């Protein structure tokens, strides 16, 4: 235990010192690692701990991004104020999808597919309704002031991402040591047994998807504020859903550090392929290569290493 605490302290110190020591582009990469770990954790809470595999988690991400952006751009809200509203909206969408799907008794693959379809409906709507400005997307006026949730120096957005990531780790850690978390794991492992032992399976699943939706929506707002632009393809596209699922699965679904490790790995592979592309002209197409590696890793991990890369670090059962 104390060794784990020591590791966490050292890791935290390194994460805090890191942006002070490296050039800006590496700061941004670090920011992306923590941000992706954060939205990955939002997936992991529902998909990893509770076993409710989702293929459409981006629906929450996009809901958050659009809610805060619309409040800000159309109604002149301060983005910091819009942030909790965006989270509430993401939570509400999570609640709605959960109530509809779990009332209908959808499980496993069917749940995964219906989340994909929900994300698709949201994408098409965002493309079509006037208040999202359709396919043109929405621009947030650049006005870099901290009070405005925009930062000139990438170091601040880095620290904000780090903070989000830490909060998400704390939430996951809490799940490993709380009754709520134990119930989610029980539901993942065997719904019938969970039910027999007095767990209101439906209610717990609704709760976790609401929580997960709110978290993921927080990531959506963060993203919009970082890039100051969203469109339906970014906010509701399948790529982000896959990314969240991938980092969790690869790092270790249902583990505290899985999404973070997965996110590190993804970014590492990205950078290596980017570097390869710069030295080997034949490989100038970077993006596909890293995703190919990632797809293969997903297959290998589902097939051979169900606890993800995390299981390489320890031998105990999950959530012990």
């Amino acid at each position, binding site marked *: 235990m104390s060794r784990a605490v020591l590791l966490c302290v050292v890791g935290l110190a390194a994460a805090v010192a890191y942006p002070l020591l490296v050039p800006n582009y590496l700061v941004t990469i670090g920011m992306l690692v923590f941000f992706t770990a954060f939205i990955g954790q939002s997936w992991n809470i529902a998909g990893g701990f509770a*076993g409710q*595999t989702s*293929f459409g988690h981006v629906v929450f991400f996009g809901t958050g991004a659009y809610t805060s952006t619309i409040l800000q751009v159309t109604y002149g809200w301060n983005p910091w104020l819009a942030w909790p509203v965006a989270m509430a909206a993401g939570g509400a969408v999570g609640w709605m999808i959960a109530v*509809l*799907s779990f*009332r*209908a*008794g*959808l499980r*496993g*693959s*069917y749940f*995964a*597919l*219906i989340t*994909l*379809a*929900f994300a*698709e*409906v949201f994408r*098409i*709507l965002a*493309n*079509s309704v006037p208040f999202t400005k*359709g*396919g043109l997307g929405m621009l947030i006026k650049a006005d870099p002031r901290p009070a405005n949730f925009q930062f000139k120096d990438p170091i601040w957005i880095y620290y904000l991402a780090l903070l989000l990531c830490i909060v998400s780790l704390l939430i996951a850690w809490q799940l490993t040591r709380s009754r709520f978390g134990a119930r989610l794991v029980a539901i993942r492992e065997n719904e019938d047994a969970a039910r027999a032992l007095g767990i209101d399976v439906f209610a717990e699943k609704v709760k976790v998807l609401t929580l997960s939706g709110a978290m993921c929506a927080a990531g959506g707002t963060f993203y919009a504020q970082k890039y100051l632009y969203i469109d339906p393809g970014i906010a509701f596209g*399948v790529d982000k859903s*896959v990314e969240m*699922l*991938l980092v969790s*699965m690869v790092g270790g679904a249902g583990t505290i550090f899985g999404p973070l490790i997965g996110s590190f790995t993804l970014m590492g592979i990205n950078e290596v392929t980017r570097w390869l592309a710069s030295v080997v002209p034949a490989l100038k*197409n970077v*993006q*596909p*290569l890293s*995703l*190919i590696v*990632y*797809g*293969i*890793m*997903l*297959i290998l991990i*589902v*097939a051979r290493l169900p606890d993800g890369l995390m299981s390489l670090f320890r031998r105990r059962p999950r959530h012990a």
Partner: protein
Amino acid sequence: MFDPAFLFAGVLNGLLAGGIYVLVAVGLTLIYGVLHIINFAHGSLLMLAMYAVFYLWRLIGIDPYAALPVVIAGAFGFGFVLYRLLIGRYNHGRDENILLITLGLSIVIDNVALLFFGGDTQTIDVPYAGTFVEIGAAFLPLPKIISFGASLVICAALGVYMAKSDMGKAIRAVAKERQGARLVGIDVENVFAVSYGIGIACLGAAACLLMPTYYVTPSSGHAFVLVAFTIVVLGGMGSFAGAAVGGFIIGITESLGGLFLGEQLGQIGISLIFILILLLKPTGLFGSKA
């Protein structure tokens, strides 16, 4: 907008598109019905087959329709081997696992396509592309009609194969009762591999029939995967009749959706049908179990 002639043309166009969807969905429903797995790589494999058709035409000049036997055979072999090497090893246990593995497979296929074929949209200019046939008030492109007919013929041939051939009977036996089939001496693993191969062969055929009027990009798989799932869920997972009826319904929905709601919003019909069926009647129109 609500001119009946317009509507008629829309329905006809939808029917024609639906005819090819049927083929895609039959492959998916066959795989589900026999193996009880959801093949998330279905769209990506179709995209790959479409590239095969495209390059056969581009490099060797083979007409897409003439390529049918080659592509069907190649797709069957590809599916068979894929099953033996990957799918078959993991199609037991939690059902999400095989979904995730086929997701991984689709990620790999999509990006391999992007790497090798580039992101550009590719089309085949068949000489008869500009020929139109007038039916009532509707002008329909000749290749769409040919493809529609060919699709129905292929589906019918598959139906006869399933009903009459020894392998077809074995497949149906395994779909119904795999333990029982094993007991009477059927090589169930082989039936699985063949079924998966046939499912992918259907995609090969669909690719040949699509290419004269459609385009392909590495992300084409995405466009088809939800369509195929919707058809199969609508018709009832594992049901052939369902896949056929579902294919036409979805084709028409898509066509009329585009007509009345516009290019963008028109696509919403498919996703909504998918969601509503899963929520309200997960057994679909013809299925027996969810």
